[in-house]
């Protein structure tokens, strides 16, 4: 009955196929108007890059701004070079460069734009603009690069660059795409989310020549970009500049902090580089040469270099001893050089004298009393308990772990615990004689210059600190900075114990750092010498001033410059003068530091 019906259905199916293929043939092959429409009617998705936030110094002077630059883009499909010689002349590139760029663009996409010449200056752009009309497939894309009015604070400010594959993978918000710029170090990296703003997208209709035919659907799908937030840094531009002048040609760090707030006034890592070099077309070239430079100009010493704290640590030992009740200002020890070497000074000394003269044997004996309290009859056990209790106290001074400054890649230094010695010597096989070098800040301890400057702030504040930070406010609002920078950290030592310590530090200058003394400003400081097994010792000095009402706390490291009383103390003293007085009158001292001849 139904034999012809399956056949009818088969015919129907073939007919459908035929109708569809015929219609497709008509629009795809016969009719080229769609091809023209596609060319005329392409929608370009134009990412609207927001204006990256600016960075100001603490007094509102501009540190970082944006400078517009122009990329010449090439669409291989539309590109016609015409007279090659003329083209090369007009656009000032070599034939090889043109061929290379074209091949790269061709490989990337035949129909999408790729850069032909990157980062053309404003003047070059003005010149090229007139010729562009003759060359289909070429157009100018505008971007902006970071610029710096003064070539200073490169490490603190950081730099931006193209996001790398690993960062892209970690970006769970899917905000970034390949080729986006992102902060790679310093403030630029830490405050990336605030500085970058939010990208917008514009969809526009363009014809084959890339000529704008207006927004797509009246901009219904467009999103406006949101400009990045401006940041006011804690850096004092003048102080930073002066410090870099002093440190030019040397290796080391200067970190200056406002003790009452933890705001970093200056942060110098020498050798340094001009931050303008790490922007624009020269980025990769400069980066490579800086990266391979043996003096490591990219290495951010204030937060990444670690040294033994040396004699400066004696101040911390004194404070812990006083707070624990093990020491009193009257505690006296003989300068017994059979315990540990020392220099010649009157003996015996009390605590004041020990700080003033930086007496090693005093701290060897004092530290033994801090460690071995006879809580256990077993000397080994007693030492272990004592060391760990002591370590807890030291950690409160912001040592032995990252402080949490608003910069990436901060190192935490090290304060060894009993586990360290257990691993090294075996459990129950070490005692005070193993660890005594900790008493004078040598041995297994490591601190960063930033931690040292923070110690100076603690001494100045008589027992508390705010975590050092580089940013004062975001968009003019101080409450937008991370909360941890607004929290007071107590170190667990009563303020009264600091009075004598401050006096001793002020007095110490007369013993060990006479160059640093100023007539009208009382500086309280302590020299140190970080032992360097590879060469001349590093010169270290921490100080705060004025002693009566501290405005600045500072740590200076000058590598391979020997004794702390010369290079570091002089530099610190000049920085203090510059910050408090606004100018430096002691020209001889300045010349002495600039000459940089500290070893004699």
């Amino acid at each position, binding site marked *: 009955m139904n034999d012809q019906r399956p056949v009818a*259905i088969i015919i129907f199916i073939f007919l*459908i196929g035929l109708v569809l293929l015929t219609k497709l043939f008509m629009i795809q092959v016969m009719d080229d108007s769609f091809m023209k429409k596609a060319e005329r009617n392409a929608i370009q998705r134009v990412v609207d890059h927001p204006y990256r936030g600016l960075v100001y110094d603490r007094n509102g002077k501009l540190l970082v701004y944006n400078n517009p630059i122009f990329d010449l883009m090439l669409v291989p499909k539309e590109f016609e070079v015409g007279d090659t010689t003329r083209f090369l002349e007009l656009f000032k590139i070599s034939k090889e460069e043109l061929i290379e760029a074209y091949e790269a663009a061709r490989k990337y996409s035949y129909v999408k734009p790729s850069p032909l010449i990157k980062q053309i200056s404003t003047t070059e752009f003005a010149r090229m603009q007139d010729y562009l009309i003759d060359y289909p497939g070429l157009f100018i894309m505008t971007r902006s690069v970071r610029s710096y009015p003064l070539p200073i604070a490169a490490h603190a400010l950081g730099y931006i660059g193209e996001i790398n594959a690993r960062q892209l993978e970690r970006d769970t918000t899917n905000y970034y795409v390949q080729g986006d710029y992102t902060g790679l170090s310093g403030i630029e990296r830490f405050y990336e989310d605030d500085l970058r703003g939010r990208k917008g997208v514009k969809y526009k209709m363009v014809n084959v020549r890339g000529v704008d035919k207006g927004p797509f659907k009246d901009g219904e799908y467009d999103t406006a970009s949101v400009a990045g937030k401006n940041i006011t840094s804690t850096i004092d531009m003048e102080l930073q500049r002066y410090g870099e002048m002093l440190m030019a040609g040397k290796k080391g760090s200067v970190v200056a902090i406002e003790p009452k707030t933890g705001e970093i006034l200056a942060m110098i890592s020498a050798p340094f580089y001009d931050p303008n070099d790490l922007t624009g077309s020269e980025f990769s070239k400069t980066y490579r040469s800086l990266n391979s430079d043996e003096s490591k100009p990219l290495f951010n010493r204030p937060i990444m270099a670690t040294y033994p704290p040396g004699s400066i640590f004696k101040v911390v030992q004194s404070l812990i001893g006083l707070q624990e009740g093990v020491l009193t200002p009257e505690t006296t020890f003989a300068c017994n050089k059979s315990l540990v070497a020392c220099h010649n000074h009157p003996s015996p000394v009390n605590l004041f004298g020990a700080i003033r003269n930086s007496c090693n044997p005093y701290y060897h004996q004092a530290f033994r009393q801090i460690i071995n309290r006879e809580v256990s009859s077993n000397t080994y056990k007693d030492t272990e308990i004592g060391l760990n209790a002591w370590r807890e106290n030291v950690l409160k001074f912001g040592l032995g772990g990252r402080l949490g400054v608003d910069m990436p890649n901060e190192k935490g230094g090290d304060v060894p615990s009993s586990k360290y010695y257990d691993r090294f010597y075996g459990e129950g096989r070490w005692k005070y004689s193993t660890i005594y070098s900790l008493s004078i800040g040598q041995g297994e301890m490591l601190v960063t210059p930033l931690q040292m400057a923070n110690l100076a702030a603690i001494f100045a504040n008589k027992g508390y600190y705010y975590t050092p930070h580089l940013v004062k406010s975001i968009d003019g609002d101080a409450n937008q900075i991370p909360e941890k920078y607004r929290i007071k950290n107590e170190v667990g030592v009563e303020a009264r114990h600091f009075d004598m310590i401050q006096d001793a530090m002020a007095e110490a200058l007369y013993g060990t750092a006479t160059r640093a003394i100023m007539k009208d400003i009382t500086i309280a400081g302590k020299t140190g010498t970080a032992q360097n097994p590879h060469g001349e010792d590093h010169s270290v000095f921490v100080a705060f001033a004025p002693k009566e009402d501290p405005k600045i706390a500072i740590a200076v490291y000058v590598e391979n410059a020997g004794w702390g009383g010369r290079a570091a103390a002089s530099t610190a003293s000049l920085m203090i003068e510059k910050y408090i007085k606004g100018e430096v009158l002691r020209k001889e001292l300045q010349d002495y530091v600039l000459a940089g001849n500290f070893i004699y």
Partner: protein
Amino acid sequence: MRESDININRVDWITVMIYFTLVIIGWFNIYAAVYDGQAEKSIFDFSINSGKQLVWIGTAIAIIIVVMAADYRLYENLSIYLYLTFLVLLVLTPFVGKEVNGQVLSIGVGSFRIQPGEFAKFATALALAKFMERPTFDLSKRSYQLKAFGVLMLPVILILLQPDTGTAMVYFSLLIMFYREGLPQYYYVLAFGGIAVTLLALGIENNLYLSGAIIAIVILLIVLGKKSWQRILAFSLIGVGVIIYIYSIDFVVSKLPEHQQNRIMVLFNPDLDPLGVGWNVTQSKIAIGSGGLAGKGYLQGTQTKFDFVPEQHTDFIFCTLGEEFGWLGSFVVISLFVALLYRLIIMAERQKTRFTRIYGYCVISIILFHFMINIAMTIGLFPVVGIPLPFFSYGGSSLWSFTILLFIFIKMDSSRAMQLGRLG
């Protein structure tokens, strides 16, 4: 009696090969639809649709194994229960489902969601096959016609309530199966005549021309044929009825929801609003049309990016193919579909039981309808209806339901030697 239910040699491998070819071509096109040269991602990247589709394909293979491993009689025995289950799910969907764009299509827990409307297709097909398999069931009789339509219309009404017009329309494709099973031809003449008049009425601006043509045809029929009063009266009444129908269409269309109205109007005049409702069709035609004979090359399309054509990777996936592979690519895919359908007819006709043959024709009807309407809408031959291209479009529900639908039939076909002839 039987040794094993899985007889690999009896599986229709041609159908299986066509199925996998379409699935893989579809997968590559889904990647092309989301491909962005600015942010290159691997086709396997699970954060983009091609990666997800790979998961759907993997699970579809698992489904195939389960379908093929089950006893062939299971589907027949379960048919009524499956049908009732999906009716219940369809009733529940509006209450427990998730609303998207005013439609409640899917139910499920968390990110695992299914659309009962998609899966109810094969359940309805099985139920119809079971219901109609009796030798006494005769579609030329009015009472049987009504019963068969009843089984068909129940899910349709429930789906229309969601409302999902596109999926509901698919069920009417089973009229093709009814045709094979003997539904009288005059239904189809009426249906096609009605559709033709409707299309003409919508397509021709001035209804006067169309009315004039109808009157001319009626007069011609009266003049040419036998001149009895009954005939003249009958033709005149039909003519008047058609003309009234023509004028009522505009009225009915104006009562439709606006988006459906627009879809219909755009079919006849895409330039009416090229950036508005006509956007899909205009862009889709530009994309396909700009493909030329051999296409722009894989991933080199410029028109089908950025998700401007909504449903780029689902209902409009054919655009990507047309743009990047040109007419030759379209030819290959359309030929694959025609070959598949042809093969399925051969398979359906060799069945020994009416149950399996009816089910086979249900599969043919549903796939044919999807294939025909989906491609027709991308090239502006049919209004935009949200139905996917079988095996091709992105999405788990769609791929799974077509896979189940097809492989149940492949399973039945491979077991046909074990079935007693019941064709009578």
